[in-house]
């Protein structure tokens, strides 16, 4: 079943000129279509300015299409009466861990979403506790948000989205501002949430993160360049070069060693090399 359908989506930014008239700016997204299946893990990759963050904001109605439609679980984001319904189903985690935490105390921040939805207090408490346990931050629940590391803050932001019990979470470059350890912990949580059935859309410019998805959408200058599985994408060197991307180190090593293209992760590589050494 398709959970999100994007049809001919175009987003055009207008700016106000000095004389007060609206001037058409550039098209951040130029007529793209794709759909996301329920429970799947899709990553969107592309260079800066390729329109991937703009796309993310369209998926829960933070931005509305200039033309075309975004349909979430049968609801159009243009339908204002459905807006809160859509946002409660599509959670979002942003890039900057500092700028998305509302309350000083960890558990109060996680409760912010469910509070907005009007969930009864006892139920909020349950959801907050389970969300914090899911991201491994339960023992930090009474701490001040400013005392946490970047990776921990990002986990709190994920818990904040999870506590709303969404069916889908859009991650907009969640690891861009984190150190390697924080990045790894956030990726682990993203994969785990996906395995629990949450539809996952990961916007990133780290190839190694995108490679963990079922499907990679490559964007460039507001267009979709390619939409394929990681394996298909990494076999297409021409596409990789055209989109200005880099192969993940494991895949690059595999290419140079001339090993079979079923190797996608470090673990695969280790297994293959062990086999060869015997």
């Amino acid at each position: 079943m398709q959970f999100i359908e994007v049809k001919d989506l175009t987003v055009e930014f207008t700016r106000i000129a000095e004389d007060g008239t609206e001037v058409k700016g550039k098209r951040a997204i130029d007529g793209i279509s794709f759909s996301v299946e329920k429970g799947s893990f899709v990553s969107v990759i592309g260079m800066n300015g390729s329109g991937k963050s703009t796309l993310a904001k369209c998926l829960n109605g933070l931005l509305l299409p200039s033309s075309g439609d975004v349909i979430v679980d049968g609801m159009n984001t243009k339908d204002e009466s459905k807006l809160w319904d859509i946002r409660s189903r599509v959670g979002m985690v942003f890039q900057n861990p500092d700028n998305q935490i509302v309350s000083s105390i960890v558990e109060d921040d996680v409760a912010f979403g469910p509070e907005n939805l009007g969930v009864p207090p006892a139920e909020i408490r349950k959801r907050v506790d389970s969300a914090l346990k899911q991201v491994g931050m339960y023992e930090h629940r009474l701490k001040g948000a400013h005392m946490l590391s970047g990776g921990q803050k990002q986990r709190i932001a994920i818990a904040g989205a999870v506590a709303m019990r969404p069916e889908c979470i859009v991650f907009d470059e969640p690891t861009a501002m984190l150190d390697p350890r924080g990045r790894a912990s956030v990726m682990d949580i993203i994969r785990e949430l996906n395995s629990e059935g949450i539809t996952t859309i990961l916007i990133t410019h780290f190839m190694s993160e995108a490679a963990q998805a079922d499907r990679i959408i490559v964007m460039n200058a507001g267009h979709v360049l390619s939409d394929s599985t990681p394996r298909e994408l990494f076999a297409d060197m021409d596409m990789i070069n055209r989109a200005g991307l880099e192969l993940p180190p494991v895949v690059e090593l595999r290419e140079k060693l001339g090993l079979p293209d079923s190797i996608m992760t470090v673990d695969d590589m280790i297994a293959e090399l062990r086999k060869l050494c015997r």
Partner: protein
Amino acid sequence: MIRDITLGQYYPGESPIHRLDARTKIIATILYIIELFVVNNFWGFLIAAAALFAVIAVSRVPVKFIFRGLTAVFIIIAFTFIINLFMVDGRVLWHWRFLTITYEGVSRAFFMAVRLVLLIIGSSMMTLTTKPIELTDGLEKLFKPFSLIGLPSHEIALMMTIALRFIPTLMEETDKIIKAQEARGADFESGNLFQRAKSLIPILIPLFISSFRIAQDLALAMEARCYHGGSGRTRMNEIHFAKGDAVAAVLMVLFLAVIIASRYIPVLYK
């Protein structure tokens, strides 16, 4: 230096004072401040100080922690003390050129300093024992009746929550900007007062811009989490009055009576 200010900080704990309803603590603090101005002799202050120390003892907030907050406002206290010491007319105690200290001046100076110290400790006890979110919740509920005349109680409370949340973030941001400017050779330490004030401009402008950027990010994040104003919103920790609050209310009334009575205790120093 900024980090040393305990005013407005929360000291986590589980004491009966911590467990009181935020509204009780807000009302008690306002009442306490008023009472400090009702007091007209040192007996009253003795009683007020005793009550305050009782509260501190029950709250189990370390006294050292509370007094560290006082050091930041020490200059204000010292200033008040000195002004009062020299400016009050009366029986001369000491005289040198244009400086005159009178008996009345000494007594007034101590009186004001004690009042100020009690005022600061008293109000910081509220913030020390109340989580910021509870404090803003309490204010929201206290202001609720005024929403009938158009006071946006929910919005005010939310603004306070966000302000408290972003104090450390903006402090970090300031630190970053100062370091970046210093790395480019900016000088914040030398020159007279005006030059120093002027050298703050390259810090304040980037800080201003970055706070706008933070505001934009935060607004998006809040919208993504379905924030749509105060209507239809529930709270995880509903605040409600409990037995402890009734006890506190009785104590508050008793204390008020004692303070008013203290005005009529004959004074010794006249």
